[in-house]
């Protein structure tokens, strides 16, 4: 009986030790997961918190940081002519438009600019389709894609993915939701993929570089194909309704 009690006590102690050990391990894992590379994380967090506090606009930067210009050929090119107007949607993204460079013009006539900003880089387009800011680390590792599923500037039957890849990226492809893939053209470090909403949509962007194979999520959500995007007629109807509601008050 006593031996049984002792055995039970010992078993409880062992279970206790295992639980404590597991808790410590879990805490360490959480610490590692949360801690990561704290310097990079805090830089990225600062970049994003500034964006949120600043009406979605990135802060300007006095000159193009060497970390970016050494890895993005588009930033080593001559700046655009001062007479080149910066479209309003590009100004809205913030950063420093004096340092902005037009990177690529799509078949839909949308010119995508890269706009250096404090702590990162933004992309923004003349029609307002592509828009997003990324911290420097994300740009340098190619983790810089954004997707537009519905926008007044985008035809309702299209989904667009736009992003930035550093110099040296080759064999760039978009993997699609049906398991196939398509080649992606990168011009001046920028790619823009317009796909029909009714067909397979990009799930990830993959590329090769001197240090191996890489990928980043396309960021297109799985239900993007079924999105019911507002049309100009929807806008007109809603505007009339809002006007009527205001006048009845």
């Amino acid at each position, binding site marked *: 009986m006593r031996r049984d009690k002792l055995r039970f006590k010992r078993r409880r102690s062992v279970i206790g030790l295992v639980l404590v050990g597991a808790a410590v391990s879990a805490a360490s894992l959480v610490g590692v997961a949360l801690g990561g590379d704290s310097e990079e994380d805090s830089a990225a967090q600062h970049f994003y918190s500034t964006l949120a506090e600043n009406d979605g606009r990135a802060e300007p930067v006095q000159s193009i940081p060497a970390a970016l210009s050494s890895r993005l050929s588009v930033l080593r090119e001559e700046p655009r002519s001062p007479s080149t107007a910066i479209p309003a949607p590009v100004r809205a993204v913030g950063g420093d438009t004096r340092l902005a460079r037009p990177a690529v013009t799509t078949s839909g006539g949308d010119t995508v600019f890269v706009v250096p900003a404090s702590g990162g880089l933004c992309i923004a387009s003349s029609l307002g389709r592509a*828009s997003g800011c990324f911290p420097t680390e994300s740009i340098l590792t190619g983790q810089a894609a954004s997707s537009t599923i*519905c926008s007044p500037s985008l035809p309702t039957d299209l989904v667009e993915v736009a992003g930035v890849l550093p110099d040296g990226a080759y064999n760039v492809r978009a993997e699609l939701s049906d398991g196939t893939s398509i080649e992606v053209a990168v011009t001046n470090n920028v790619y823009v993929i317009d796909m029909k909403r009714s067909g397979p949509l990009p799930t990830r962007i993959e590329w090769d570089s001197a240090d191996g194979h890489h990928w980043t999520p396309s960021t297109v959500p*799985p239900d993007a194909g079924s999105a019911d995007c507002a049309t100009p007629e929807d806008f007109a109807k*809603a505007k009339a309704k809002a006007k009527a509601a205001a006048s009845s008050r």
Partner: protein
Amino acid sequence: MPINRRGRNWLAVAVAALGLGGVSLAAPTVSNANSTSYCGVPIPAHTACSYQPAITHLNVASYPGSPGINVCQRANIYPNGAQVSQRCKLQQVNSGTDLYSWCRARIPLTVYAGNSSDYRHTINGLFEYGNGFGC
């Protein structure tokens, strides 16, 4: 069988969760004169928090942790209309200039901050108004 008030409320939540892929979970807080925060709580994978109605020129969805997960912001015509804007990106995404004309026309929208990852995560939502955008 008639549905009582509590039943109707649960039904509304279920419809919101199933039909719109969204859940309204947290009481919004006004962070300053020109912005309102919403959501800010853990939400299931591939769902969104909403706030309505909002007359706004900018909607932001963000994930406060690291490494980044895919987040989406969305704005629909209030109460159950078509999508005016939907954009997704790792860590933080905003509506760009998508809402400007809707804001100037003072058209109320339902704004969403969504978790587009495969796991439950805290997602912060924020929408802005004023600041010389004519709304």
